[in-house]
């Protein structure tokens, strides 16, 4: 490689080992299962899913929102390198960009395949209502692809390296807007007591930083192990410490959201439901999201006993991912399960649409579709490290310049 790349040597993953093929096979199976699930839901209609008039958005949306939000956060490391000038992260910047594109592709595929009329994707691309945050997001998502691909090109093409900083800054700002837009999909739902809050936008930004970073850390650990490249303790330590900070930020916004809602008398019902008597939602919130998804990883990351352990870092990242899925499940499903206020102060009964907690049991088709999105994202990364010089030769602790 030329001097302009800082003499970091990148190399495609060479062999067609059994492990690589097994991974491709597994991810490919997920993709096929996801397409199959979507096919069944589209041909039969959505009644075969667990979704209903009350639970309008279900498991596919949990998966899609998680992947899209994580896509933005997966670009953290590239931003740190290009925007904030941290040379330590530079060798991983390419992987960061590829992971961001892949996660977004996976998330969007799920979102689109769950539409009632996915065949009308062209309509979504040609008819716009610019007052809709959803329409804005269509631009933000497709634009993110373009921005990230250009950014990746600036980083990978020697003659273009000098533009990688402005491209990185642009991509950084773009993804902040993107996550703000995704959070606002919920934040702008003025009618629903569970949403309708501006804190959704920054909370989604914090969530994106945390989830995307956790996935990135896992991918780096897996890629280094899988391709037999050295990985220094220092970079793992830095990456996991950042994850801890992002998780704490997420927890902060979650606390602000619920404390605010607890002050609003009209919202005490939904808050009691989510935080105290919501059954699976309450469990997912406290145990899944808060404890296992945030507090335990933070402890694993910063506690002196485990701070030096790579295994603990991997566990923390995995827990953060699972906790993140739990958090989005509670936001998306839990937020819809509790009945909306129809006439303030009055009890409303008489129709399944009004009374009681909405039941929701995700069908196998929805779960398959959601996992299919994960499969698409990871398959793209797996393929990219095979054909593109994305992974550096070494991530050993020695300064990369001397590698």
């Amino acid at each position, binding site marked *: 490689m030329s001097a302009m790349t800082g003499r970091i040597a990148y190399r*495609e993953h060479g062999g067609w080992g059994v492990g690589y093929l097994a991974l491709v096979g597994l991810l490919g199976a997920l993709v096929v299962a996801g*397409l199959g699930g*979507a*096919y069944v839901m*589209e*041909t039969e209609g959505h009644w075969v899913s667990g979704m209903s008039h009350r639970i309008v958005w279900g498991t596919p949306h949990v998966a899609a929102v998680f992947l899209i939000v994580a896509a933005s956060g997966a670009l953290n490391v590239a931003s740190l390198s290009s925007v904030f000038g941290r040379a330590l992260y530079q060798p991983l910047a390419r992987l960061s960009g590829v992971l961001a*594109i892949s996660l977004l*592709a996976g998330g969007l*595929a799920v979102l*689109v*395949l769950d539409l009632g*009329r*996915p*065949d*009308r*994707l062209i309509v979504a691309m040609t008819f716009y209502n610019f007052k809709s945050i959803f329409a804005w997001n269509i631009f933000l998502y497709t634009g993110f692809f373009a921005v990230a*691909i250009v950014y990746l*090109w600036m980083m*990978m*093409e*020697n003659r273009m390296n000098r533009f990688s900083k402005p491209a990185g800054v642009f991509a950084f700002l773009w993804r902040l807007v993107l996550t703000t837009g995704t959070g606002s999909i919920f934040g702008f739902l003025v009618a629903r007591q569970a949403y309708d809050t501006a804190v959704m936008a920054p909370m989604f930004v914090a969530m994106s930083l945390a989830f995307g970073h956790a996935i990135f850390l896992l991918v780096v650990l897996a890629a280094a192990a899988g391709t037999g490249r050295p990985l220094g303790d220092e970079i793992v330590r830095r990456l996991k410490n950042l994850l801890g900070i992002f998780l704490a930020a997420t927890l902060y916004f979650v606390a602000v959201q619920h404390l605010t809602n607890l002050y609003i008398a009209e919202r005490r019902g939904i808050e009691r439901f989510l935080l105290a008597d919501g059954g699976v939602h309450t469990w997912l919130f406290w145990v899944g999201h808060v404890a296992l998804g945030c507090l335990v990883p933070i402890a694993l990351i910063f506690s002196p006993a485990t701070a030096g352990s790579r295994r603990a870092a991997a566990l923390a990242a995995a827990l953060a991912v699972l906790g993140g899925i739990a958090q989005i499940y509670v936001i998306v499903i839990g937020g819809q399960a509790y009945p909306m206020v129809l006439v303030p102060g009055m009890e409303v009964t008489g129709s399944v649409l009004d009374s009681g907690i909405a039941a929701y049991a995700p069908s196998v088709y929805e779960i398959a579709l959601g996992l299919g999105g994960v499969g*698409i994202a990871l*398959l*793209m990364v797996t*393929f*990219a490290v095979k*054909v*593109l*010089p994305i992974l550096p030769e070494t991530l050993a602790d020695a300064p990369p310049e001397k590698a």
Partner: protein
Amino acid sequence: MAGRTRTFVLVLAAFAVVGALAGGAFSAVAGESPRAIKTPPPAVAADGPRTPVPKPPKAAKGTECVEPTADMRRNHMIYLDHERDQTVHQGIRGRKHSLRGCVECHAVPDSAAGGARTVVPFCADCHRYVAVRIDCFGCHATAPETRAEAASESSRRIFNGGGVRPAAPAGKSP
């Protein structure tokens, strides 16, 4: 350098393939609306041509189409689209070209519907020939309204009296 450019193009191509696969799945799924025009391919006579030329069934007797046949064959979708948007968004009804109008005259006995009169055989005949799949009838009724329905429904009494088609052209009414 060249090698890297090539691999980059390769990976972009790979993304495109994934996208195309997903897109193909959408449209395959999408087109599979069970109400989409789908009929079994017609039997081709042993000495006949490979592709049977469409012979759409005749419209109801005593009627003439709103435009010359050649014009309708070529432009019916344009007429329908145009007035569709005006009807849906501006409430302009009772115009010359309407899907309901097509169904009224072109409904013929449909074996797929148990012999009931629907417009499907008429549409399907050409649409199969030109391999254009339409999804009008995912939502729109394929059959004209029956007389019993029309009589029982107060809504149809005035301008929307579409279901009941006088046998004689309007000009001959007393």
